[in-house]
């Protein structure tokens, strides 16, 4: 399920593109709005937000984490892995700093943070629990089968692949952070380099305007 070849990676990108196109043109969308992408300071908002396909992962406490766990709260999602000493902890630290800024600015319910591992072979639930606790009690780690993680990643527009090294392997993965709204829909994509001040301003605007539609 890892994208070992450019063809597989391309297939995922195309599948995501097709999914995005279908969701944008689908008549199932009862909304009257023409979907647009609105620029944010540190990313792009989807207007209207896009529903996610059903998914089912396992959290650090070995309980199921699925679409229903996204309801009634905003959630920031990052795909990473614990054998990633540079950009993954840096990103989670940016999200922790962003949360602190939101709290300081008077936001009562800050977004939850969800780390989805792209390396389920090394990241079991307990490893993730230990790892995410370091970044704040609003942070949850989720793992799952390779198929479940790949399907959610493809649906949400994240690419990743396993890369063999002389000793062991590493994972290439999208550096984007996704914002899901309290209906569990994809509302925005934040693109690296991520800046806590800019993220906090973007989130304040988005949270205040509901689903931005």
């Amino acid at each position, binding site marked *: 399920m890892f994208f070992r070849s450019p063809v597989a990676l391309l297939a995922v990108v195309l599948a995501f593109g097709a999914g995005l196109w279908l969701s944008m043109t689908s008549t199932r969308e009862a909304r009257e709005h023409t979907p647009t992408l609105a620029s944010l300071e540190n990313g792009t908002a989807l207007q209207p937000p896009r529903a996610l396909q059903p998914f089912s992962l396992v959290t650090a406490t070995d309980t199921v984490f699925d679409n229903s766990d996204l309801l009634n709260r905003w959630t920031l999602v990052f795909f990473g892995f614990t054998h990633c000493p540079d950009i993954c902890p840096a990103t989670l630290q940016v999200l922790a700093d962003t949360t602190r800024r939101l709290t300081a600015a008077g936001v009562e319910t800050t977004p939850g943070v969800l780390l989805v591992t792209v390396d389920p072979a090394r990241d079991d639930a307990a490893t993730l629990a230990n790892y995410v606790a370091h970044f704040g009690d609003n942070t949850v780690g989720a793992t799952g089968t390779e198929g479940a993680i790949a399907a959610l990643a493809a649906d949400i527009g994240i*690419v990743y692949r396993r890369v063999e090294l002389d000793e062991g392997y590493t994972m290439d993965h999208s550096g984007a952070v996704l914002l899901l709204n309290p209906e569990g829909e994809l509302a925005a994509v934040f693109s690296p380099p991520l800046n806590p001040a800019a993220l906090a301003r973007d989130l304040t605007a988005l949270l205040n305007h509901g689903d931005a539609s």
Partner: protein
Amino acid sequence: MSHRFRIAAVLLTILAHVATGCTPADNAATLSFERGWVRTPAPNAKMTAGYVAINNDTAADVRITRAASPQFGRVEIHTTSMVDGVMQMRPVQALDVPAHGQVSLEPGGLHLMLMAAKGPLAADDSVIVTLFSDDRPVAELTLPLARSNPHDE
């Protein structure tokens, strides 16, 4: 913090050279270091990353080929780069610090990848890292632990 750190690095560099019999005239003795830190790993995590800016105050290029730490089983020099929004981390064979130049190891770019931690690190610990040029130690650094870059702002 940064000033104190630099002094410590220079002193340790000199000590390292005394210990290994190198003379201060060695070009390696005039490397200087600033903005060093190691990201505090999650409890029980076996790896983390270290950062430092390396100044080469000599007229000769210096090639750093290896790093080691008594607190970690393995230290590699890695670089993170972003290609079309995708983060890629790869080992690099050597760090070339040009004459009268600087190479900066910082988040999202070059970093020391500290692997196979030999034990838990307390929050107030420092990490000792020795840099080698071929098999010759050129500096011993004492890098403070921090959750995010203590040299920002």
